Each structure stands twice: as structure tokens, then as C-alpha cells.
């Protein structure tokens, strides 16, 4: 019995550590401005209001940032999945000299933090004429997600028996159809995990968005919200509302596909 109690006590503590700060953010976001600064603070808002969200949507460029973030993140997911599943398939199903070395080299690029190459990266993007475009962000995020996604998908493709694919070929399908109808469906958990990982990286990134994009109408959420935060005297209710709106897509997606994600993480590790 004492062991049970200790377990649940520790579990409760962990729950508080993980979730309480986020619950506090939500609570603040739902309070009218008078209640936000009340002493003693109220954990559950006495008078729930959406006025903070209303102000956020009406008086700031938040919705523009939101649209940009959604667009950039989705485009990154599509591009990354296309490029990495092609690449991973090439690395698994074709025998060529130097294959393992290439795979190792790809993993090595994973070790370089963006901050270590951001300067040449910026100059390069500038010379390509891509500064201040969404394309620059999509290409950066795709590149930095690639090593992880390639390795993750490679391990999934490796676990799919070649015979299944060959059977489809014998039945008269060409290779493209065999891949589309046999291999990809079987690798779906890996593809979903890679997609979520990519989405979260693109959605959360601050550094590239800070350096590569300067015009107001192209900014994504992290930089836009940081500007809102630094602009004037902090409007805590509105800033917490912004925090809630940015957090919802990430956690929503995560909860929706949690079991795929854990599987994928086990196979490839995470970064950050």
C-alpha cells in the first residue's frame, strides 16, 4: 500500500510539472484583465472571457502570422515526406557502392546545429535571392528534417519484407504501383511519425524565421509573437492567449497520433 501511495504521489508530481504551467497559461488567457493581476491569484478563472483572444485576433497581425505558419509547416511536411521517402527507398531497396557511407554521412549532418551554419546559410539564401520568402523557410526546414526522416523511414522500409513487394511485381504491377500500394501503406506509422516531427520542427522554429524573414506580412508565429511581447507594456492576457493558440495544433496533432509517434521515436531518436 505504501508503495502504491508513493507511485501515485510521484505520478501526481510529474503531472503537475508537465501540465501545470500550460494549465496556468490557459487559465490566464481566459481571465478578464482585472482578475489576471488579482491577489491571491485564482487558479480557475472566476469569470471566463474570450476578450483576450478577441483582442489578439482584432488588434494584432496574429492571424497573418498564423496563416504563414500553417502554410510553411504544411508545405514543409509535403516536401520533406516526398524527398525523404524517395531517398529512404533508394537507400533500402537498391544496392550500390558506398550506400552505407552515404547513410552515415547523412546522419553526420544531423550533428550540426543550425546556429553553427546560420551565417553562411543566410549569405547563401541572400545570393539565391530568397531572403524574405516563404520558400527559404520551407527549404531550410526540409533540409534540417531530412537526416532524421531518412533514417526513420529507412528503418521502416527495412522492416518490410522484400517478398511482399516482389509478389506485387509478379502479379503484374510495375515498381511504382508496388511501392504506392504495398510499401507505403505498410510504412504508414513511420511516415506519420516523420510528418509530425517535421510539422513540429517547422511550426516551432525561431532562428531561421528570425534571420531569413523580416517583412511583417511573411512572419511566422514564433517571431511574430516575440515582437508582440516586446512591443509595449506586456498585455499578459493577450500574450497567454497567443501561447494557447500556438500550442493547440502541436499538442492536438500529437495526441491524435501518439501511438505512431512513440513508435517512430523509438526507431530514430529526436533532436532539439
Amino acid at each position, binding site marked *: 500500500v505504501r508503495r502504491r501511495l508513493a507511485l501515485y504521489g510521484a505520478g501526481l508530481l510529474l503531472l503537475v510539472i508537465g501540465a501545470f504551467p500550460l494549465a496556468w497559461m490557459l487559465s490566464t488567457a481566459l481571465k478578464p484583465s482585472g482578475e489576471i493581476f488579482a491577489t491571491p491569484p485564482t487558479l480557475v478563472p472566476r469569470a471566463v472571457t474570450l476578450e483576450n483572444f478577441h483582442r489578439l485576433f482584432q488588434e494584432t497581425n496574429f492571424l497573418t502570422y498564423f496563416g504563414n505558419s500553417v502554410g510553411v509547416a504544411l508545405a514543409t511536411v509535403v516536401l520533406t515526406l516526398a524527398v525523404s521517402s524517395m*531517398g529512404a527507398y533508394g537507400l533500402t531497396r537498391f544496392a550500390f557502392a558506398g550506400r552505407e557511407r552515404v547513410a552515415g554521412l547523412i546522419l553526420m549532418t544531423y550533428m550540426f546545429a543550425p546556429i553553427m551554419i546560420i551565417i553562411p*546559410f543566410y549569405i547563401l539564401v541572400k545570393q539565391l535571392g530568397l531572403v524574405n520568402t516563404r520558400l527559404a523557410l520551407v527549404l531550410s526546414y526540409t533540409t534540417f528534417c531530412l537526416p532524421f526522416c531518412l533514417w526513420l523511414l529507412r528503418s521502416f522500409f527495412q522492416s518490410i519484407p522484400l517478398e511482399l513487394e516482389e509478389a506485387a511485381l509478379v502479379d503484374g504491377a510495375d515498381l511504382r504501383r508496388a511501392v504506392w500500394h504495398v510499401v507505403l501503406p505498410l510504412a504508414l506509422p513511420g511516415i506519420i511519425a516523420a510528418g509530425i516531427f517535421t510539422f513540429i520542427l517547422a511550426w516551432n522554429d525561431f532562428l531561421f524565421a528570425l534571420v531569413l524573414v523580416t517583412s511583417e506580412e511573411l512572419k511566422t508565429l514564433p517571431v511574430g509573437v516575440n515582437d508582440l511581447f516586446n512591443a509595449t507594456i506586456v498585455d499578459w492576457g493577450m500574450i497567454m492567449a497567443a501561447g494557447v493558440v500556438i500550442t493547440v495544433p502541436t499538442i492536438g496533432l500529437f495526441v491524435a497520433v501518439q501511438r505512431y509517434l512513440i513508435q517512430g521515436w523509438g526507431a530514430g*531518436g529526436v533532436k532539439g
Partner: protein
Amino acid sequence: MNRHPLVGWLLLAPSLLLLGGLVLFPILYNFWLSLHDKHAFMPVQNFVGLKHYVYFAGDPEFWSSVRYGTIYAGGTLILQLVLGVGAALLLNEAFRGRNILRGVVLFPYMIPTIVAVILWKWLLNDSYGLVNHVLVTVGLVRAPVAWLGKDHIMTSLIVMSVWQFFPFVVVTYLARLQTIPPELYEAAKVDGATAWRRFLHVTLPQTYNVLFVIVLLRSIFMFTKFDTVWLMAGEGGVSRYVRTLPVYAYSRSFTYLQAGMGATLAVLMFLLLLAATVVYFRAFRNDEAAA
């Protein structure tokens, strides 16, 4: 059947093009830049050899950024390990609500850094923050503490970063814990080993290699962490009490627009990490332990 090697290369081509063009080329270009005086926006550039390296060797700000970076990486690493391994051990036990808790514990790691930062700035706010309110009410401090002022900014940054990144340790450590054969524990129980001794003599040796990797990755990630540190302290005021190497490299390049010097700092960051990694492998690599 169409399994020609050329098709394999063709499928890999887009990946290699992106990684080559946007990672490998910038790495080489960065090294080249570090040997030049270059403005971040203007095309002027002059070869200066190792001038920047010599400059930073005698630059107190560089050494202080290395020191702050080491304190930050070391402090967050130890606390992440303690909290992360503890949480993983807990989540490996059977109890009701375990699966929900396994999900919830990952939340801090999933949210954008900007959210984690504004959230903690609100919690730690000196006049209205919940943390100060609780501490004053309980009587641990007499007056609200300026958690984001110069005396406590490093502590606050470390606490906030541990909260944000410990889930990484939980996920990776838990994944390995789940593969330890239960017979090992049963044998230890039969021998009358206490829970602590079971942890010491079964769990730790079994998880040595995953801990080796976790420590390596977390150290690298924390030492090169930019956004959390920069967002927490900004560039003026209190920031010089937490100016780590990545933040220093960023301000050299994009605030003072000295791209050559910024690139030199990036190379130095890489060399420091490389040296630390080599030492780490020499000291702790254990090829005989179970994978």
C-alpha cells in the same frame, strides 16, 4: 526487374542535393568565411587569415561566453538527467493513468520555445508571478524575488530549460527500460536486493549505453542552444549574464554585422564540441556493455 543502382542514386538525388547545398556547402563556406573580414550584408570581403582566431583567443567576452555556455549546458544536463531518468523509472511501473501521463510529460518538449519562454516569464514575473506569490505565501522568501534580474537570470534560464527539455530524456530512457528482460529483476529480488540495489546493479549497467548517448546528445544540443537563451534574456540589459557562445556568435553576425567574426565563433564552437566529444568517448565509451 528495375533495381538498377542508378535508380537508387536518382531517388536519393533530391536529398543529397538539399543536404549538400544547404548543410555541407555552408559548413565549408563557414570555414572560408572565418578567414575573411566580411560584412553581413555588403559584398566587401578581405582575406585576413587567422586574425579573428587570434582576436578571440584574447577576447574576454569569448571566454565568458564559453564559461556561461558550460555552466548552462552542465547545469541543465545534470538536472535533465535526474528528472528525466526519475520520470522514466516511474513511467515504467504499472499504475492507472500511466499512458496518459506518458503523453502529458512530453508536452513541454512539443510546445514552441517562444511559448515556453513567455509562459515562464509570466510565472516568474516579479510583481504578479505565481512563483513569487507561492514563495512569499509559504514564507520561503520575505519579498518577491527578481527572478529575471541579473542575479537569478541564469538559475531561471536553467530551470526553464530543464522543464522544456527533460522529456527527451524520458522518451529515450523509457524506450530502453522497456527492453530490459524482467527475469533480471526477478533474479535480483530472489537474491534479496533492495530497490536501490536493483537500480544500481541491474538497471544502470543495462542502460549504460543509452545514457552514454543521451549525455552526448543533450550536451551538444544544450551547448548549441540559441532560441531558448536568446528569447529568455534578449540582447541588452541582463543578457550579458547568460550570453552563451551561440548567442555571442549570433550578435557578432547579425547585430554587429561582422559575418567573418561570427563564422569564426561558429568554427570555435565546433572545435570545442569536437574536442569534448573525443575526450568523452575516450573516458566513457564502453564497448562490452549491453547495447
